[in-house]
């Protein structure tokens, strides 16, 4: 049965549109201040204009790149460290307490430290992003690597696999569902921190775009920036879901 005319889906679109419509009407009737809440049409016009003249692509690219690099760095370190900690009781006893202590620190709090070491640079931004984004991946990896079914570990021993083969063929694939879930949360954090570091350090990007739009009271630009940010967040999440469905194909098969 074709789902083209699913009434609920239609209703949800109508709902979203009516919110925008109400906003537009309020704005037109000057019931809400155009300074703070420019009408959707105005925002759309600005968005169109800036997409056409290219002034939104650079910030978008900059934020995306920072977010991605920071996330990749966090992922690699997180998975490697997680593998080491998750598969060794000693490593866990040694490292757990100190990690538990550092974890609750808001990543943005290390921005001043990062600025002292690295200045107001892209390196600073990527470092802060990596610091904040590593936790979900690390915790998920530790959990994944320490939950390999003992039967599989035994099979590995009986077959005579060394540590490297065990990690590669058995532990890592076994931990992968957990790791991917962690990667997803990490990516969301990476986006947030990219925006924060941009606002803090005036590095070109969507965060800074929104920040400076506010300074100039150009609220339509501000909203346009928010829309781009929403799209970036949505797109990034979608990429992970695609990755997940590829890599974890075996989870979705039905008997």
């Amino acid at each position, binding site marked *: 049965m074709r789902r083209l005319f699913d009434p*609920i889906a239609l*209703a*949800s*679109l109508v*709902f*979203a549109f009516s*919110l925008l419509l109400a906003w537009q009407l309020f704005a037109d009737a000057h019931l809400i201040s155009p*300074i*703070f809440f420019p009408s959707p049409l105005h925002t759309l016009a600005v968005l169109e204009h800036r997409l056409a003249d290219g002034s939104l692509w650079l910030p978008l690219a900059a934020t995306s790149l920072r977010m991605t690099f920071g996330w990749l760095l966090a992922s690699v370190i997180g998975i490697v460290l997680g593998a080491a900690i998750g598969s060794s009781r*000693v490593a866990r*006893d*040694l*490292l*757990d*307490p*100190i990690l*538990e*202590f*550092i*974890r*609750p*620190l*808001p*990543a*943005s*709090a*290390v*921005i*001043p*430290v990062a*600025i*002292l*070491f690295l200045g107001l640079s892209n390196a600073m931004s990527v470092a802060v992003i990596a610091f904040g984004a590593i936790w979900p991946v690390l915790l998920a990896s530790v959990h994944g690597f320490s939950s390999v079914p003992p039967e599989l570990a035994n099979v590995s021993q009986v077959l005579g696999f060394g540590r490297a083969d065990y990690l590669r063929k058995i532990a890592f694939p076994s931990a992968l569902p957990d790791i991917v879930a962690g990667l997803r949360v990490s990516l*969301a954090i990476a*986006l*947030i921190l990219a*925006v*924060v570091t941009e*606002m*803090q350090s005036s590095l070109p990007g*969507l*965060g800074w775009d*929104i*920040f400076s*739009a*506010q*300074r100039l*009271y150009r*609220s339509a630009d*501000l909203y346009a*920036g*928010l829309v781009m*940010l*929403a799209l970036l*967040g*949505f797109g990034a*999440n979608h990429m992970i879901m695609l990755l997940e469905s590829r890599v974890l194909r075996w989870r979705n098969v039905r008997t």
Partner: protein
Amino acid sequence: MRRLLLGAIIPVLLLGAWEISSRTGLLTLESLSRPSDILVAGYAALTDGSLLLATVQTCETALLGLMMAAVFGIVLGAVLGLLPTAERIAGPTIEALRPIPAIAFMPLALMVFGFGVGLEASIVAYACVWPILIVTIAAVRAIEGRLLEVAAVLELPVWKKMVKIVLPAAFARINVGLRVAAAISLVVAVTVEIVLNPRGLGYRLILAEQALEIGLMWAQLVWLCLLGYVLNLLLSRVGRGSAAIWRPL
């Protein structure tokens, strides 16, 4: 006991190496300071009240935002949870708004509220509402159908049904969402203070950095870690003992 000792090895070694190499001149980065100096600065900040004042400021704003998010999130979540059609209609709009980081709204909030508590609390509220909302919807949906039938048979008015049946039944899961949101609230509050708001622990951190009071800056970082750690500890304790809230109702 053994775990305590093992866990202390690395921190003690690191701190010791840090202290020694700073004193002997092996490590000379100005941005690094020394554990002993950090302790001194931290002690000073504690005793002169500045650290505690900033902590109170941050915590009260975070709490305010959290409460606003809780009220809005639980009420809306309960409604959407009970009316699955409404939830599916509102779904895409929620999914469209959710990926926008709360801190992206800082400039907007600044325009509307100016500097101060409002700015910070509103951002905290926006950030915290999502986990609470989502968890509440799931929790309400998972309520045993029979409980709702009982409510119908007793012909309870809507608000009584909510308070006496729906919310207590969904409480355990909502609680988990609240704990997640509480942790988020602190992080977001500090972030807003670092970037914009001249108030609280985040602001003090920036001040120390700009004044190049490195020892104080590191001490504040340690303080933040401690704060977060204690908060997490409290939250897990609270999680265990809080079902009693619903008894008087």
